[in-house]
């Protein structure tokens, strides 16, 4: 049976592995928890027993910094095991701090930003050419949109009429050194996607049913236009002292903060 991918469970795993590995990028992982919960729980088609099933839908995590959220999902699927979580960043372990295509369930090697979306476009294009019905969901960060290849990929996807591609923007409003407005203003993202011939919807990226409704509404239109979901999210969502505090792009958990984070997350489970 499919796991539940309950957001609080996923956040708990992220906190546990971040503490085990003294790892950073918690804020980046927490903003995409609900998105991944719904993608893995409802929208992606895959074989639970085989991450490499050639007929799988593709989930491309182009914003590789959020990879702990994906690891948490892969752990629920049993594609990663408890040892991977408890030994995160330990010498000789297999999970890295950014998305890595050698990990079962990870499609791309990213974190060097602006790479994954193009690979996702290629995957969507191959599926369209072979008429397999496979879809590709590519999660990009709003900060990542600074990268030139993102715009190249958008132009190309629209030109190639890839309506089996959905770009999901994790619009948490922050990037490494500040807010997206401070660093490189993005303006109206929905308008930009529209101008690039995408079907686009904004959504509250932490509202599970709203996410599903938006994905379904976009996918209902088989019109040759690629899809974009602009998910308004909160960086660090789910732990009070991390929410919208950009230091949690880089900060590490102390034992006290770890206990507090677990307490808050477990409170959300109750």
């Amino acid at each position: 049976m499919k796991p539940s991918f309950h957001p609080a469970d996923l956040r708990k795993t992220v906190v546990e592995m971040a503490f085990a590995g003294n790892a950073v990028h918690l804020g980046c992982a927490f903003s995409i928890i609900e998105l991944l919960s719904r993608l893995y729980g409802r929208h992606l088609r895959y074989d639970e027993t085989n991450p490499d099933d050639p007929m799988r839908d593709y989930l491309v995590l182009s914003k590789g910094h959020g990879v702990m959220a994906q690891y948490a999902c892969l752990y629920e699927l049993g594609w990663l095991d408890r040892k991977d979580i408890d030994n995160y960043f330990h010498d000789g372990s297999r999970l890295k701090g950014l998305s890595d295509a050698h990990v079962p369930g990870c499609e791309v090697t990213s974190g060097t930003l602006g790479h994954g979306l193009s690979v996702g476009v290629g995957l969507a294009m191959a599926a369209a050419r072979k008429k397999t019905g496979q879809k590709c969901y590519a999660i990009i960060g709003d900060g990542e949109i600074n990268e030139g290849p993102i715009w190249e990929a958008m132009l190309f996807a629209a030109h190639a009429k890839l309506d089996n591609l959905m770009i999901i923007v994790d619009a948490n409003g922050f990037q490494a050194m500040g807010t997206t407005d401070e660093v490189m203003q993005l303006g109206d993202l929905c308008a930009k996607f529209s101008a690039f011939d995408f079907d686009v919807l904004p959504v509250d990226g932490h509202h599970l049913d709203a996410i599903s409704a938006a994905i379904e509404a976009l996918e209902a239109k088989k019109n040759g236009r690629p899809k974009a979901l602009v998910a308004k999210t909160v960086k660090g969502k789910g732990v009070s002292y991390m929410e919208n505090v950009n230091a949690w792009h880089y900060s590490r958990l102390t034992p006290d903060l770890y206990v507090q984070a677990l307490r808050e997350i477990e409170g959300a489970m109750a």
Partner: protein
Amino acid sequence: MRTAFSNALVEAATQDERVVLLTGDHGYALFDEFRKRCPGQYINAGIAEQNMVGVAAGLAKAGLRPIVYGLSAFIPVRVLEQIKIDVCYEKLPVVFTGDGAGLVYSTLGTSHQSFEDIACLRSVPHIEIMSPCDAHELTACMRMALRAEGPVYLRMGKADVGQVHASLPDLRRGQLVRVREGHHPVALIATGSMVKAACALGDELAASVWSAPWIKPLDTRQVAELAAGASAFVTFEEHSAAGGLGGAVLEALSETRPLPMLRVGIGERFSQTCGSYAHAMREHGLDLASVRERVLPFAARWKAS
């Protein structure tokens, strides 16, 4: 050479429906035949090379066999990171073809001249580097490239310097091909467009001449055996003398049979003036007269006794 390339593309695509050709809006007349014969396998990805390589990686991951065409100034140099991360890390079977390598675009200047491509790729794991010297070698290389399990970079330089081989050579992965017999103690090893010049000097010196269709891998045992029977090597390439064929041969021998080597290639300079291809080759000391001036005194030091 361009006709051979076009023919090889058509042959590949008609024999294997998984083959798709991606171009970054380059190769106008070059792909006329391909577009006519295999329109469904032709993708103009626009002037957006970074995305093109990522897309090729995705296509290859899903089971297709992409051939990415560009000028060697862009493919691989501009997209080195995409080649490294998106393609080589996963050992995806993508064939990159870098056209106009070296000084071919003599009149367009530094942006289009390309003599660092081999050096850039040599340090990236899992990618093979091929550098055919004429149409026959190109055809043979293309066939090998399309059968490769992993990524390949195929470097194409000046197309019309003439034939080296009389027929399709029998290539072995990583091996040099002898194109002239000789008994001079100095052996000449050249790649791409410079094999013709090496042949001319080989004739003058009665030296053996070897073409290097592969820069990577390079059969180090073969190179060491060749070194065992020689007093010195001269390498020739229309590429930086640092990090190219000469560097690869030098490194191959460094632990087993270090040998004096003259590396003929492009030095620490960009082109300063505009002009014909012949002019650019002269400016960089790669025309036959300039090369002869360097090679003959070097070879004379090991004159057969």
